[in-house]
């Protein structure tokens, strides 16, 4: 579970809440446009240590077993994952 993109992104007068209180984790825009470089995982080099998953400020890396999976919708391309990787298995391109 994590905040995720919803289909409904605009709201009519009646749909705008009366109070400043709304469903948690409601996303309407992605962050992929911020990226100038993109991380790619070399599965052969990766040892599944999870350091990239742990240190990603945006939480866009999840571990599918021992393999890191990136959510490119929300990756900003900071490159912390690439730098933290002990096996140089993440390349920024």
């Amino acid at each position: 579970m994590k905040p995720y993109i919803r289909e409904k992104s605009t709201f009519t007068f009646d749909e705008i809440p009366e109070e400043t209180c709304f469903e948690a984790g409601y996303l309407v825009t992605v962050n992929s446009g911020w990226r100038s470089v993109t991380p790619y995982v070399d599965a052969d080099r990766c040892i599944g240590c999870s350091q990239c998953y742990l240190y990603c400020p945006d939480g866009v890396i999840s571990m599918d077993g021992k393999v890191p999976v990136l959510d490119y919708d929300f990756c900003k391309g900071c490159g912390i994952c690439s730098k933290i990787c002990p096996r140089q298995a993440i390349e920024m391109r």
Partner: protein
Amino acid sequence: MKKFLSGDEAFAEGVRLACPEVISAYPITPQTVVVEKLSEMVENGSLDAEFIHVESEHSALSCAIGASAAGVRTFTATSSQGLLYMAEGLVYASGGRFPIVMMNANRATALPWNIYGDQRDSLALLDTGWIQSYAENAQEALDLALMAYYIAEHRDVSTPYMANLDGFILTHTYENVDIPSPEQAKAYLPPYETDNRFDFDHPTNMGFSAGPDTNFIFKYKEHRAFDRARGIITEAEQRFAEIFGRRYTGLLDTYLTEDAEYVIVTLGTIAGLCRNIADELREQGIKAGVVRIRYVRPFPNDEITTALRSAKAIAVLEKDISFGNAGTVYTNVTSALHWGGITAPAYNFIGGLGGKDISADDIREVFRRIQTGTDRLNWIGVNENEH
């Protein structure tokens, strides 16, 4: 049950009957008695609440907002500088639509320092989105504590409520007060239920930002809630009369205004003296009347127009001045008169600042001056040749 109580004590009894779950307050004269009483009630078990000893008024309101966001009934109380220190929280609570109830003991604002009563503190904060009532006596103070929760927490309103009591003149003056039973209070006030809160089953994000594309809609809805509050205040008073047998008169109360030609419009405790002098003038054949504004927000625009239909001249008497203009109650009243098409002259009388007594002779003088015509803005008791 009847008891001899001060205004502060009476209000505390009302709060006890409303059963708030979280109380956060910081002491300031002349509010202290309320929080002392509530502390005693929590200690002796007559009130089951968390009493949180915050380190400032800013934190008092911040804490109340947090508890309200958790979905529970809250109470805080302050006065004067404390209310001003809370000012940021006032707009926060109203913008977030947290129905917090606060008692404010009306007191002069520094400088010069002064602990006595005038109404500059709350009137300076009229635009912060709080319902504002002004009580005249201790019984009304107690009753307003209960009605405050009914109105503020009503789903159509969901807006914080500031109950104002004149410092010392009301907060520290003793009267016989009828205290309703907890059973009656329970029958009157439903438990607080809201969706405007945290929820572990359906988590929420609260107190968020809203950009230019939606921000004004939130503000519009906030304003609309005040329009709905007018009807809910009536409903709250009708229900109150049914259960407790005491009847209140909505946003204002009128005295002999049906045919009154010379009318004082005022608020708070001074109204009683104004009514006495109106009686005196009636005996002399002068058609005098009094309007006591009970709610300054929402403002009784239509009710004022109706009450002043027959007026030939109007005095707005208030313990407030908006420097560089006139009293704030006056500018509100004159705008109501303009909207209502009332053309009778209205004069502003500023009195009672810093606790200065307003005497019977002062009120006679106000009535005398509006009969002959006077300056638009008049300061009671100021004589430049004497001081």
